[in-house]
């Protein structure tokens, strides 16, 4: 099983590396946010209730979350292409373990997110981001959990809807509210009480808070255990869902 997953992972990484363009293209959006959005936050960094000492310290950790959210959240498009070219079918008729197939794909999108996250942290350093090494490593673990969750959801949806247009619609329908109510773009504390209350049930809200705390080295922050606990559970549940869809829904 592990061997099969490794074979798929290796093959997919080879394919990704063959077109590194996509890794950088994927980074385009977060980099644009870094260059064209983060500077606007500096004007409100002194406002009461702003959770960080400066805008980059506030925004960069959220940007990492956002990248994981979108990158893994759109991973299903690759799978739809593999459905359409018949590649997936070619794999499914071999004796490959179904679980290996699932793990192989989830690992690919997770590793992509990891590589991009490291690149993004490095890109944010010249903007004045300072990081705690231990915290940053823990943050990478949290990002992996988020990537597994989002990747599993996107892959499972891809297998169900089988159409890139529908997948795009469904993904945006869920991903945008989750993003806007996570406190990644602007501090949730700035919002009206109703939205603050809604944000309080958004696991990504805790994840982006935890990301900030981890990068700053505040390892005792209360958001960290909540974020890890909720994403361990979410990653496990969504992975199980993806496994079930692969077993049943692929036709």
């Amino acid at each position, binding site marked *: 099983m592990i061997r*099969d997953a490794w*074979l798929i992972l290796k*093959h997919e990484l*080879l*394919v990704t590396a*063959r*077109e590194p363009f996509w890794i950088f293209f994927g980074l385009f959006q977060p980099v644009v946010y870094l260059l064209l959005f983060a500077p606007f936050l500096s004007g409100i960094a002194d406002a009461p209730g702003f959770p960080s000492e400066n805008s980059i310290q506030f925004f960069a950790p959220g940007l990492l979350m956002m990248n994981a959210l979108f990158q893994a959240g759109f991973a299903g498009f690759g799978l739809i292409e*593999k459905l*359409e*070219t*018949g*590649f*997936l*079918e*070619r*794999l*499914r*008729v*071999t*004796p*490959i373990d179904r679980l290996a197939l699932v793990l192989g794909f989830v690992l690919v999108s997770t590793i992509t997110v990891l590589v991009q996250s490291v690149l993004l942290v490095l890109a944010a350093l010249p903007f004045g981001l300072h990081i705690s090494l231990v915290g940053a490593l823990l943050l990478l673990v949290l990002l992996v959990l988020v990537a597994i969750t989002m990747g599993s959801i996107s892959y499972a949806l891809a297998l169900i809807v089988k159409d890139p247009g529908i997948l795009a619609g469904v993904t945006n329908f869920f991903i945008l509210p989750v993003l806007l109510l996570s406190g990644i773009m602007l501090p949730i504390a700035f919002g009206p009480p109703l939205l603050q209350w809604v944000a309080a049930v958004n696991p990504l809200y805790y994840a982006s808070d935890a990301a900030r705390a981890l990068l700053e080295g505040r390892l005792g922050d209360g958001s960290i255990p909540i974020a890890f606990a909720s994403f361990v559970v979410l990653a496990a549940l969504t992975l199980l869902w993806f496994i079930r869809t692969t077993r049943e829904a692929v*036709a």
Partner: protein
Amino acid sequence: MAEPILLAEQLRKTFIAKKGMGPKAVVEAVRGVDLRVGAGEVFGLLGPNGAGKTTTMRMLCTLLPPSGGSGRIAGFDLIRDQAEVRKRIGYVSQKGGMERVATGRENLLLQAQLYGMSRRQAVERVNVILARLKIGEFADRKTNTYSGGQRRIFDLASGIIHSPPLLFLDEPTTGLDPQSRSRVWEEVGRLHGEGATIFLTTHYLEEADALCDRVAIVDRGQVVAHGTPAELKRLVGGDTIALGFASADHAARARNVLLHSVKELVIDERALRLTVEQGDERLPIILAALNAAQLPVLTVALSRPTLDQVFLKLTGRSLTAAEPAEDAA
């Protein structure tokens, strides 16, 4: 006869199809198909688009759970022993399934290793296959640079990488140019010569005729006839004479003239198709009769029975003109 390598009994597949926001419709894609294929045979499933050929094949390849019935491949149950079945079959789908940005060699290496070969065994095996199919010169190019024919040969290579006793080919030559088609035929013939069993679907009559030891004709999810191509052609029971006229009116009048002197007669606008015994002897007589009735014949063709006529005889429709129903799978 020993247990057949492929056995299907009353195989069924029902899909729930939804059209837009409308009510759900139940599509019976395969409605109780029985098949028996002996080791070493080339067996063809012949039928128009939407007849259920691909759906049947996908069930036999463990890609689609049957809604009913049962099947055994090399003695293993299609549903209970999927893993054992998968080890013993090769499958080349219509799409092929090569990863586009990987090279042909990389695709084949992955395939070989997924069948349990070590990296070294896989490298060796791929080299053997590449040499055998004479595709070594393309092997290190990305598959998205291949022509349709080249890609098809690589698809075939991926299907036989583990030397499966049973190879499934889904419409192996659809969309290929004549040269590539004969190349695929040549390879199928060679595999057959080496003792492999091949199960293929096609809607090309000449393909079934040229490649298959036995053929099952499917229409609307059911087998309507099976046998060797020669046996099936005997069902038609005669030669065919096709006559072309200047107008539908001429054709209709010619029909009345000939109605009582031929075994069977089909009218299709300005054309008449007659089934007769000893067509070569009857043709001059028929032409003379039409000449006497002042119905000028524009074109004449005499043909021995083809599988198309078998299909027409069995279903009342021409295979080539059969309504291309929605392909359920």
